[in-house]
């Protein structure tokens, strides 16, 4: 297991370099000099401040030097400061000489996106395992057909459209749910319970919209996986030795179906992070997606590159955890590794 871990960790180094290369390359796709495009949004920027920017980002040096200088800063987790007027640090808080702390932009946004997606993942897991198993056990009977239809529609629904309609219907017409942000006005003055309730109310729509696609794909996956496993010989053996149908389905078949799910969840992380752009923009939630979208529109390069890099690194770690989880959960692989 240890050998596998070390090998897996070492593999991440070339991956990280590749990711940093791509993030760096993207920034240089922009036509012209980044100080020019930056100043286009800030016409007051003087020639002097442009010079400063150029020096700060080493734009006067050759590309290779620029990249290696940028990489040196990234390794120290220094993603620089935003181009926006508040000039907040991109990643983490900094203290100035007077001891004032300025919080990092990603530091603020990441927990929000993580919270929405983790709650979403939990719901996806519970519901899709339920739907997939019901579907598989009733193959080609009405529950299976009904669930399949729902799953296909869930796949095809444009999330932003559903979000708009739900927002209008539950929020504007009926005023059941708040339609934007994460907190109501006067959140600070509420008691702890009321704060939680308020947060949950705000989270219902965004979580629902963000988990719909995953729900559809994982239900389908569980259904097909169950159907495959149920045909295998060890299931026949389990039935032959007189186990109840419940034990066969949940004790034997489901456990074998769930294993590969670990990998699937790892692979779905970039989709979830990327998908947060539209949902967060619609519901005005200041998570990673909205931060990225706003930064892209304002050509705030340090933020764009910072989020691209951090988002990819998170995915890498997600996959790493998924792989380790898989190796740990599957005795066949675990044995294979220790040998």
């Amino acid at each position, binding site marked *: 297991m240890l050998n596998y871990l070390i090998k897996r960790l070492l593999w991440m180094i*070339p*991956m990280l370099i*590749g*990711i940093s290369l*791509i*993030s760096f390359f*993207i*920034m240089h*796709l*922009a*036509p012209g000099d980044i100080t020019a495009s930056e100043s286009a949004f800030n016409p007051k920027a003087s020639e002097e401040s442009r010079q400063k920017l150029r020096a700060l980002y080493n734009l006067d040096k050759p590309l290779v030097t620029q990249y290696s200088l940028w990489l040196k800063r990234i390794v120290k987790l220094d993603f620089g400061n935003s181009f926006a007027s508040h000039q907040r640090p991109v990643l983490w808080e900094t203290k100035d000489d007077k001891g004032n702390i300025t919080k990092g932009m990603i530091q603020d946004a990441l927990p929000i996106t993580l919270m929405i997606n983790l709650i979403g993942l939990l719901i996806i897991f519970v519901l899709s395992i339920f739907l997939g198993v019901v579907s598989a056990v009733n193959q080609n009977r009405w529950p299976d057909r009904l669930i399949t239809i729902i799953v*296909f*529609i869930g*796949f*095809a*629904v*444009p*999330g*932003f*459209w*559903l979000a*708009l*309609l739900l927002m*209008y219907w539950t929020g*504007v017409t009926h005023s059941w749910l708040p339609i934007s942000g994460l907190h109501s006005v006067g959140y600070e003055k509420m008691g702890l319970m009321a704060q939680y309730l308020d947060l949950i109310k705000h989270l219902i729509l965004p979580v629902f919209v963000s988990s719909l696609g995953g729900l559809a794909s994982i239900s389908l996956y569980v259904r097909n996986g169950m159907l495959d496993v149920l045909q295998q010989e060890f299931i026949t053996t389990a039935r032959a030795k007189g186990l109840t149908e419940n034990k066969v389905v949940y004790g034997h078949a489901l456990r074998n179906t769930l294993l590969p799910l670990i990998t699937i969840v790892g*692979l779905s992380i*970039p*989709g979830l*992070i*990327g*998908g947060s*752009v*539209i949902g967060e*923009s619609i519901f005005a939630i200041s998570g990673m997606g909205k931060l*990225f*979208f706003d930064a*892209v*529109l304002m*050509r705030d390069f340090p933020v*764009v590159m910072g*989020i*691209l890099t951090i*988002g*990819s690194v998170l*995915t*890498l770690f997600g*996959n790493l955890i998924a792989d380790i989880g898989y190796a740990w959960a599957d005795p066949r692989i675990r044995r294979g590794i220790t040998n």
Partner: protein
Amino acid sequence: MKILTQNPLALSGFIIIVSVLFIAIFAPWLSPYDPNYIDIHSILLPPSASHFMGTDGLGRDVFSRMLYGSRISLLVGIVAVGIATVIGTFLGAVAGFYRGYIDSIIMRFVDIMLSIPTFFLILAVIAFLTPSIWNIMIVIGLTSWMGVTRLVRAEFLSLRNREYILAAEAMGASDYRLISKHLLPNSLTPIIVTSVLGIASAVLTESGLSFLGLGVQAPQSSWGNILTDGKEYIQFAWWLSLFPGLAILITVLGYNLLGEGLRDLLDPKNKNQQK
């Protein structure tokens, strides 16, 4: 055609796609109005006999705009997936055929591309390159080939040591001939299935980008940007939001049904091959 009728999923998907194709091709003849004609006397009219889907904030006929919008979604879907399939098949073929270090370099690159959140990548590139329909198609294509690569590579790896391939190699067939005449034709079905499913997600991505204002630009209509306009009027003009979303849903559903249906149809054969 005969295969399609055996599977209701595939058949209904096929019918939907053919209808969308028909609408896209004949949009100029089917649409009752010029999609970009601004009529300030008929702003935000609800659906009626003269405007089937009502009019928008500039008095343009939504039905006509929807018909023209089908062209965009079709074009984006097919071109983007075309690009992805060509790149993916090429890299997958090279990796699976030559194996060794070429394979590991290509697959590491795939892993890297897969770990960057795709929508972030697309957004950044589009915004920096200025949004246009061509840029969108190219960028979606360039960021969605990885699945095809993995698939083609896996197919090639499993076919590579079959006797008929070894026989062809022994008889002096060139690498190019082995790949194009023997290996590729035998990997075609999974490529087709993935491509059809890929069109569905390309259509969704395009509509999402247009919705964010980074996609197809006005006055050209796409389902995504009709919806963006509709967002402003959602309180008093529901038809502006409802119809484009439904159109996207039905089209994406069509591609998914067709893709999954084809996969089901071709599945038994695949299983026999593996055994």
